[in-house]
């Protein structure tokens, strides 16, 4: 790709997303990233550029997301900076990403195969020395086998060992000592001494060679790294498969007559907001939009993790990624690819990979001094032993370098986080902030939002009262006509209750005032209003008791016509989860903006004693702050609709439900599902994850504290050191992988 041509904004819009004004966002693939040092190098270099707003480079997938201000700096300059650092930059289209990944995995397999084949052969060649007993081998034969091993070890070191040397050098270039430095030093030392022993068998070290140790070590290391790599890829693959590429082409409706539509198949890139598309049964919905005509059942598995179909019809919102099961629908495009619901989730997951819990950051700091001291220890053991026995000196020096395994510090935590995130994502729980795992384990106070969180947000008509002045059937038709296109939960409930096939009532100019009601002008009845008491102009004192407690009323020109009271469905298991929190000594409260009676009813049904009603978003926020002032650790669960500030203020917050606002609101976790019991699952898993990470760190400390002194004292041969190191790192990886199950 010739980046110089990307100068005009019109070029940019082909593959970048315009956030606002001059701010753009692009997704790239950066090839050649081997380790965190490379990631930091790229990020730090670009962060210094004026005009760069945000950069996130991801280690495993090699994806990078860059946001910049196009009036301050142009994209070609940013790209050339990355290239100068030694990396190749591609656009994030599926093809280039896949091709480079495939090439890389072939290379990995090839390097590993070399180490495997040569390892077997070299082990065979080294057997005679071991089996020959105290007399040693005839010197000619020894030379034969040594030279043979030497020839075989060369490809191993050049190809298979390359990755360790590259990583170590990259680290040093960035002034960072990483785990591969001791490994590289160990390999180089063993190789040097082996060559010396091969060329001059009667040297200081009686010609001892280490070809078998080198090849076994490299082979085991590559094997364990390959396994770790697979584990990480498996965790990541679930995310990317989830959001597999949406269809390339869409069926655009040219004429809006849905009985006789004219369909053209266009590339999805050419669809704009407001276009009308047709979705056939079996197709995947391409864009976020709203249904204009037709009805069907949708499979929202990408959202909820369950394939239970959701019935949708005119006026319902649908999202890209859903599968249209059995009906023909026409929908209007509301959001394009980059701003779709599904891509927002994807971005959240990607961004969350960069957050780190506090104690992991602390452990990162220890890694450097630890590795430096290992290198110093190895040098000092050599010096100490030199006067006693040259052989022991070499053994000790090499073994100290190799036996140490700081893998728990480097590898286990990312794997554990990945495994945990994967397990959660399979249930529809997405982590925005990994740090929240820690706080989640410490909460002692729970605030719940009511509507949409404890209740399912779909109220049902409890009681309905109609006047005698008009025919009920007729009134029902009017009601249906009024509520046909409204999205308000009360209106939808009325619509579902009174839906008739041939209503034949045409109501003109239906006006909906959000949160208050619906009104229209009719020739026969004057102004028809449907909504709250205040909206209809009814004085509560004028109403009899049973009508005054109704939430929705209808009037013709101010005259009372009908009233409806609603009851809310409590979500399944809401009661159980409140009880389970009580058992944990965590108190739950409700913060709701609804009326007292409604909140009281819900509180009673789920077993909550303390509840607050009529709360504005600001009141909710203040409640959370007050609780925190009294040393409480607050978990707030809401739907993001009117509890944004409270959610942001709480120590940990979860947004749940199925409206897009759960993603936009600032929170730590998103549960895209209506199963409230998942909160329990989340808390349990976060506790497990933290304990696994801690276990790994304890194991690492234990292992190093025991093995390094033994190596220092010369008790451990190099090959044994290599064995210990790989098994330790495998234990740590397997322990983390447990979380995935």
């Amino acid at each position: 790709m010739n980046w110089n041509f990307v100068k005009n904004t019109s070029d940019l819009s082909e593959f970048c997303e315009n956030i606002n004004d001059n701010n753009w966002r692009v997704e790239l693939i950066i090839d050649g990233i081997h380790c965190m040092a490379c990631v930091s190098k790229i990020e730090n270099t670009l962060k210094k550029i004026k005009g760069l707003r945000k950069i996130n480079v991801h280690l495993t997938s090699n994806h990078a997301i860059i946001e910049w201000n196009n009036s301050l700096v142009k994209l070609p300059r940013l790209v050339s900076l990355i290239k100068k650092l030694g990396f190749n930059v591609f656009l994030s289209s599926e093809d280039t990403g896949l091709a480079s990944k495939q090439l890389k995995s072939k290379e990995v397999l090839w390097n590993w195969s070399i180490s495997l084949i040569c390892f077997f052969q070299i082990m065979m060649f080294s057997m005679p020395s071991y089996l020959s007993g105290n007399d040693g081998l005839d010197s000619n034969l020894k030379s034969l086998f040594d030279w043979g091993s030497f020839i075989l070890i060369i490809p191993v070191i050049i190809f298979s060992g390359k990755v360790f040397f590259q990583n170590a050098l990259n680290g040093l270039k960035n002034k960072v000592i990483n785990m591969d430095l001791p490994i590289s030093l160990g390999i180089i030392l063993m190789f040097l001494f082996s060559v010396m022993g091969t060329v001059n068998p009667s040297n200081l070290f009686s010609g001892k060679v280490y070809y078998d140790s080198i090849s076994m070590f490299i082979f085991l290391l590559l094997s364990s790294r390959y396994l770790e790599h697979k584990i990480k890829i498996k965790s990541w693959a679930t995310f990317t498969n989830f959001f597999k590429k949406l269809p390339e082409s869409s069926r655009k409706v040219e004429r809006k007559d849905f009985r006789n539509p004219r369909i053209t198949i266009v590339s999805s890139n050419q669809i704009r907001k407001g276009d009308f598309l047709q979705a056939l049964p079996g197709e995947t919905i391409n864009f976020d939009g709203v249904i204009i005509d037709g009805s069907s059942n949708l499979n929202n598995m990408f959202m909820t993790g369950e394939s239970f179909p959701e019935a949708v019809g005119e006026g319902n919102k649908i999202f890209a990624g859903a599968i249209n099961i059995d009906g023909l629908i026409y929908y209007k495009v509301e959001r394009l690819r980059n701003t779709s619901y599904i891509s927002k989730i994807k971005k959240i997951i990607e961004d969350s990979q960069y957050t780190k819990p506090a104690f992991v950051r602390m452990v990162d700091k220890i890694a450097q001094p630890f590795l430096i001291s290992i290198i110093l220890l190895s040098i000092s053991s050599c010096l100490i032993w030199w006067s006693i026995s040259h052989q022991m000196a070499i053994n000790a020096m090499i073994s100290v370098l190799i036996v140490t395994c700081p893998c728990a510090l480097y590898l286990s935590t990312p794997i554990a986080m990945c495994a945990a995130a994967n397990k959660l994502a399979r249930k529809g729980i997405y982590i925005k902030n990994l740090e929240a795992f820690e706080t989640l384990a410490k909460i002692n106070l729970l605030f719940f939002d009511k509507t949409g969180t404890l209740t399912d947000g779909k109220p049902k008509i409890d009681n309905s009262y109609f006047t005698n002045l008009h025919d009920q059937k007729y009134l029902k038709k009017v009601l249906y006509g009024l509520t046909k296109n409204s999205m308000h939960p009360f209106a939808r409930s009325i619509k579902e209750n009174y839906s008739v096939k041939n209503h034949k009532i045409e109501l003109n100019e239906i006006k909906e005032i959000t949160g208050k009601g619906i009104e229209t002008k009719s020739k026969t009845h004057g102004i028809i209003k449907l909504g709250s008491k205040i909206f209809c102009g009814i004085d509560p004192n004028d109403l009899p008791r049973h009508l005054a407690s109704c939430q929705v009323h209808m009037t013709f020109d101010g005259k009372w016509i009908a009233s409806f009271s609603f009851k809310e469905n409590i979500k399944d298991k809401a009661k159980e989860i409140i009880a389970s929190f009580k058992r944990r000594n965590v108190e739950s409260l409700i913060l709701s903006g609804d009326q007292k009676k409604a909140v009281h009813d819900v509180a009673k049904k789920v077993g909550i004693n303390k509840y607050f009603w009529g709360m504005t978003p600001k009141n909710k926020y203040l409640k959370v702050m007050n609780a925190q002032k009294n040393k409480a650790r607050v978990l707030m669960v809401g739907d993001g609709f009117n509890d944004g500030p409270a959610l942001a203020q709480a120590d940990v917050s979860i947004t749940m439900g199925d409206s897009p606002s759960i993603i936009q609101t600032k929170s730590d976790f998103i549960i895209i599902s209506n199963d409230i019991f998942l909160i329990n699952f989340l808390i349990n898993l976060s506790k497990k994850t933290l304990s696994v990470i801690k276990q790994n760190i304890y194991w690492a400390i234990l292992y190093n504290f025991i093995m390094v002194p033994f190596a220092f004292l010369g008790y451990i041969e190099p090959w044994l050191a290599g064995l210990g190191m790989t098994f330790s790192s495998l234990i740590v990886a397997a322990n983390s992988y447990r979380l995935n199950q």
Partner: protein
Amino acid sequence: MEILFILIPISIIFNFAVLIFLRWAIYSNQFEKLDNEARRILKE
């Protein structure tokens, strides 16, 4: 035992022959999509 001085180098040559063959196999996609052959039977 002198025969070893011929046999060992021959074995090393074999070793490299194996490596060359493996390289061909890996880079000509022999190890990609291992399930395809299994599924082909079902398709037919």
